[in-house]
């Protein structure tokens, strides 16, 4: 089998998976909206809490997408992507609390939605720009990069825990009332946020797909596989890395901004290194460098967490931990790899 055929087959698979993923996402979203609209005593009715739970999953999926974009296609493992997620979340949290009584005078400026929306992407984007510029310029790679991203999010966690930061200290920002003038506790808002998250996931998915299929995407993958060669050919690898890293951070920031109103709180624990590691685990479990695998992984792990912590509160960590071990050992390409494998086998037998 020549390289060309491998590439062709993969791209074909990609197209099909893009198509299927989009349909599943859209149909799923519509179904949720319709089921929620059913009368409450109907057997199929989905209540508010399920919708907001699903909305939360969607924001996690968006975050996983951001991680997959740089880890899967660029080979950069960030163990601190939770930081960008949290920054987006804090920007949104500041906007929401500024609706009532601002914590500090400067926060009044965050009461304007356009400013807040800008902050949601700019705060993580700028941090990623500065951090990435420093790191990629001096060619910090591999594990070194991973560990310093972890240090970054850890430092931010400690900093945000301090009351002097004006971010609510360890309690974070909470007690939100309304978003864009609508009450957050209303049913319509729950659905609206769910749909917004769904649309964001869909757009980000298409966007990432487009990037990976573009020239930039191919340079990315080439960088991932043989950085030195790409450099010799004449590409400014650090610029490519920086651009994609910043984009990924912005996506994470948007995910955080959508997460906060649905959960009702943002606090420094979102910066915890453990959370960022978990995100990487979702991606690995779903399948790296497929995008839809990241979506799937985030959904599966978080769904399992929801179910297992209720069903077996004392033993769920054994199962989840065991699952991580089993998947790495037996499903190196994650669940997406398993699905692709099954399909190929079916094609062969058919």
């Amino acid at each position, binding site marked *: 089998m020549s390289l060309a055929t491998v590439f062709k087959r993969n791209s074909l698979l990609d197209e099909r998976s893009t198509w299927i993923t989009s349909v599943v996402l859209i149909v799923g979203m519509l179904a949720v909206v319709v089921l929620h609209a059913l009368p409450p005593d109907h057997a199929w009715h989905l209540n508010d809490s399920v919708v907001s739970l699903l909305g939360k999953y969607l924001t996690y999926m968006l975050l996983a997408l951001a991680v997959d974009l740089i880890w899967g296609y660029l080979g950069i493992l960030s163990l601190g992507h939770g930081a960008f997620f949290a920054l987006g979340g804090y920007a949104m949290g500041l906007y929401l609390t500024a609706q009532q009584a601002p914590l500090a005078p400067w926060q009044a400026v965050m009461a304007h939605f356009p400013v807040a929306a800008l902050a949601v992407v700019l705060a993580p984007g700028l941090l990623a720009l500065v951090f990435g510029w420093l790191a990629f310029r001096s060619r910090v790679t591999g*594990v070194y990069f991973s560990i310093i991203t972890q240090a970054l999010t850890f430092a931010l966690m400690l900093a945000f825990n301090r009351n002097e930061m004006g971010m609510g200290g360890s309690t974070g920002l909470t007690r939100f009332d309304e978003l864009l003038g609508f009450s957050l506790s209303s049913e319509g808002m729950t659905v609206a946020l769910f749909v917004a998250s769904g649309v964001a996931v869909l757009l980000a998915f298409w966007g990432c797909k487009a990037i990976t299929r573009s020239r930039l995407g191919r340079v990315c993958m080439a960088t991932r596989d043989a950085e030195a060669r790409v450099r010799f050919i004449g590409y400014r690898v650090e610029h490519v890395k920086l651009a994609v890293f910043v984009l990924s951070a912005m996506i994470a920031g948007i995910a955080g901004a959508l997460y906060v109103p649905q959960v009702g709180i943002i606090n420094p624990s979102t910066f915890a290194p453990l959370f960022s590691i978990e995100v990487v*685990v979702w991606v690995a479990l779903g399948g790296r460098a497929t995008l839809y695998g990241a979506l799937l992984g985030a959904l599966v792990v978080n769904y399992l967490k929801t179910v297992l912590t209720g069903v077996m509160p*004392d033993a769920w960590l054994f199962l989840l931990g065991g699952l991580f071990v089993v*998947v790495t050992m037996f499903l190196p390409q994650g669940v997406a790899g398993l699905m692709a494998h099954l399909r190929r086998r079916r094609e062969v037998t058919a």
Partner: protein
Amino acid sequence: MTPTHAMNVRPESMTGSQAGFGFRHCLMVVAVLLVWFAIVSPVQAEVTPQRAQALLQALDTDDFDAKAEAAQAIAASDAAQKTRWLEALLDGRLGRERRGERFYIITDDSGREWPIIDAITFEDAGTGSRRSVDAFRINNALRTQLQGLIASLSLDEGDEATRLDAAKRLIGEVDAQSVDAVAAQLDDEESSAVRAEIETALALYRVEQGDASALSTLRGNLDTRVRNSLSTIAASDAPIAAEAGETLAGIESKRAWYERGQTLFFGLSAGSVLVLAAIGLAITFGVMGVINMAHGELIMLGAYTTWMIQQLLPGQPGLALLLAIPGGFLVAAAFGILIERSVIRFLKGRPLETLLATFGISLILQQLVRTVFSPLNRRVASPDWLQGAWQINEALSLTLNRLGVLLFCLVVFAALWALMRYTRLGLEVRAVTQNRTMARSMGVRAARVDMLTFGLGAGVAGLAGVALSQITNVGPNLGQSYIVDSFLVVVFGGVGNLWGTLVAGMSLGVINQVLQPWVGAVLAKVIVLIGVILFIQKRPQGLFAPKGRTS
């Protein structure tokens, strides 16, 4: 208690461990002197049971002042049992029958049913429990007083340590009435240590009276009370203010040096904890490229091993700790080899995926400990030789547990270094680190090296756990709190370099402790983290870049 913590006139109350806080009172000096010499054992005799009953009955009050007087009365009485009563009272083991008249001494208060004896006859009285025996309570002030009473009942005259203790108390307490008595005492005293303290006390008195010549005796004295007095004098408009200020400046600069020494020690000891936690990781990470997220849990296993060995050897924490050193190493190494054989070996060439798998393992190990032992912390005792401090002088003291961990860290490091430098395993490990493929083609069995290396790294993590059990909690969360720091130290030092890990850990510890007084503990940590991030940008391979090619 009198609210101002003022002086009781009782002589005995002064022999307790209370570090005298500048109370000027003639009676106190007299009291100290009294204890010093005039300890005449009262003639002890049997008292009638009624009298004994009455003495104990007086203790049965909620008013601590009344209780203090009752204890005083017991000490002054002729009762032969008085020392035992006071000791039991001090330990909270003297009590009264609830809804009854008898008094008991609890001989063993562990568990819920206690063996008790009659407090007056010392005859066996079966068992009691919280429901049936109401133990007399004491508070801090009463405790201090009781310690004094018991000490005075069992003191030998002429015990040098007691005299030294009393002499130290004299500093700042000498006044016009007692100065002659103290001076006379100086002439009789033979011990030079005691003499030095008395001289300081007298000199301080004279300086306070305006005698500039006495200042020379105080030069370089680090005692806080001397410093406090001198700074008061220097700030006043007394004629000797300027000279006192000079002496004070001398003291302050000497003190500053010792304080720098102390900060360095604090930093090195904090750094040694980092080095211990990270060095096992430096081996597994450096040699095998495995991102072992379960490293913290291996540390935890070492700490739990210490606890278990202590459970097996109750009452011998020292021996247990020594046994835990090989024990912790072996347990953690066994788990490490198990992890390597069952999981990591199948993930060859996929280092980042080891992160995922070992993350799962760390979750499992944590929950395992919660299920098997308990989610609560375990109590690990410290042997006597790791408690307290080595008091070099008033300004510099090194706490023994920290000193122990620092030395242990250096020993472990030296042993590891020697292992790497002089043994065949070390040679093979270094070969594999530098170039795995080349080493294999030279006949090194890389798989076996991997297994042993991982076992070694895990074992060293276990050793770190044994050391940590002496300074922090032993609980299921122990490992998590060290994992981020450990990775940072390894990366800062340069992956695969033992010296790098040592230097990195120690310098991070020292920098942190130097910053801490200025900016507070939280910000110091943030600054250190950002510093490391910026440093890595400057030197992407860490302090000591690995030699040879890494691929």
